[in-house]
């Protein structure tokens, strides 16, 4: 294993707070939501694992060496039980993570049948041409068909076509949360970590209206899932 300090990019003499800060920054960088259905998601989770292990090993060795004053449990690291949710805007991203954890296998959307389950499986395994070939053999294009076609496009990097497919699916079946989430994700333009000082550049014109809208949407989503993001509304 690499030196845990070099993994976190801090010197061995760094204070506990500095280590924690560096760890948090890296955890934000490689957070799964930044690699939502991304073909490189496996590489990001590798990195995440690496920094979690490095952080855990540093905290453990410091506890043993008398740093125990501010006990950092193993549960402190990301994915180890302590939720990072609040820091990332809460519910909207969490519900995204949930839907990703379920993957494409769950029979949802009502119209799920064996072929669609197989196609979802292929998409999950990144067998995109196989999934597309199977989709093309299906004569009737219902909402789920459009959703799955959109997923194939998305994984391929064809974001414009993906957005159109998701929109069609959501229009055909307005009550479906999965489709609506996909449309919302597409409308946001995706997300990625930006270091401080580098976060001014964006391709979209996010004005205050859009931000409010997004927060309101996130709140509604949250409430739908039984939680709440903004207490007062």
């Amino acid at each position, binding site marked *: 294993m690499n030196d845990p300090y070099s993994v976190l990019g801090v010197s061995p003499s760094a204070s506990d707070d500095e280590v924690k800060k560096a760890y948090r920054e890296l955890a934000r*960088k*490689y957070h799964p939501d*930044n*690699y939502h259905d*991304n*073909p*490189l998601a496996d*590489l*990001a989770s*590798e*990195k995440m694992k690496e920094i979690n292990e490095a952080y855990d090993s540093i905290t453990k060795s410091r506890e043993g060496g008398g740093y125990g004053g501010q006990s950092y449990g193993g549960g402190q690291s990301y994915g180890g039980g302590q939720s990072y949710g609040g820091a990332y805007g809460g519910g909207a991203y969490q519900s995204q993570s949930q839907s990703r954890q379920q993957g494409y296998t769950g029979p949802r959307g009502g119209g799920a049948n064996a072929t669609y389950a197989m196609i979802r499986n292929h998409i999950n395994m*990144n067998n995109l041409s196989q999934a597309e070939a199977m989709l093309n053999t299906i004569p009737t294009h219902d909402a789920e068909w459009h959703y799955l076609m959109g997923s194939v*496009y998305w994984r391929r*990097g*064809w*974001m*414009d*076509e993906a*957005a159109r497919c998701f929109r069609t699916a959501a229009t055909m079946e307005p009550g479906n949360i999965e489709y609506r989430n996909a449309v919302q994700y*597409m*409308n*946001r*333009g*995706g*997300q*990625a*970590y*930006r*270091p401080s000082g*580098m*976060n*001014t*550049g*964006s*391709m*979209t*014109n996010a004005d205050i209206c859009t931000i409010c809208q997004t927060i309101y949407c996130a709140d509604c989503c949250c409430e739908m899932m039984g939680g709440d993001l903004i207490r007062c509304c």
Partner: protein
Amino acid sequence: MYGYVRPERGELRVREYERFRGVYCGLCHTLAARYGPALRFAVNYDFTFLAMLLAGPDEPEPCARRCPYRPTRKTVCPGPSPAMDAAADYTVVLAYWKLRDGAADGRFFPALGSRLLAAAIGPAYRKAASRRPAFARETERSLAALAALEREKCASLDAAADTFARILAAAAESAGNGPRPEAGDSAGDPPRVRAVRELLYHLGRVVYVLDAADDLASDTAADAYNPLRYRFDTEDGRLSPEDEAGLRVTLSHSHNSIISAFQLLDGTPYTAILENIIYLGLPAAAQAVFSGTWRAGRRPGREERSRL
């Protein structure tokens, strides 16, 4: 070539800016050394970015070279490296096919000019293609696919952008240890090659879409193919505010994919410059294209020459 992939100069440290200039000059010298002085014309910002992206963790020893355009003083640029050689080879391959593409253009005199130039750099192209066979094949195949899409007036923005994106993505082969013999299934590639390929794919997509947006008015006036004309049914060569917002969102997805892929790469001497280009330069270029100041703001001279 296009020039959208450039740093936001005001945000660079002076030493970073000098290093960037050095790589630009280094690419120019590499082109001259590998393909003859005439090929210097092909040097451009986009492939300067590529040379830095493909660079390994250790920077080659710097060397001082005299620039033929500014013979009075020497510039300091990085010495020869595999990444610089690769970037020069790709530059020549793409320059040749862009000229061939221009030769197929309908108008007589521009087409003649392109044909003559393409013939002139033919020997250099053959040399470059023999050094990077997979990249040359992908470029030829993708530009043929793009020509077919143009003929059928394809309304899918993604399909059109895919052709150019694939060309850039093919350059990821050099991110590993030397070119692989055959480009086949990409799943078995080392992580670095996978991340660079994903980055370059989306960079190619952004460049293509920005170029389409920039050319929309002139293409509409000349009745030439532009995917945005058919994707958004534009009449007067302008995007409606809603369509422009939609286009920005799709660009934002690609931009975020570029960033996510970039963050998986290990640091090199050029990381700070690459960060500047990716985080700040690209959005600034997009902003300039959409506000219509890109064309107006283009400085003549050196940068104009660097366009293929």
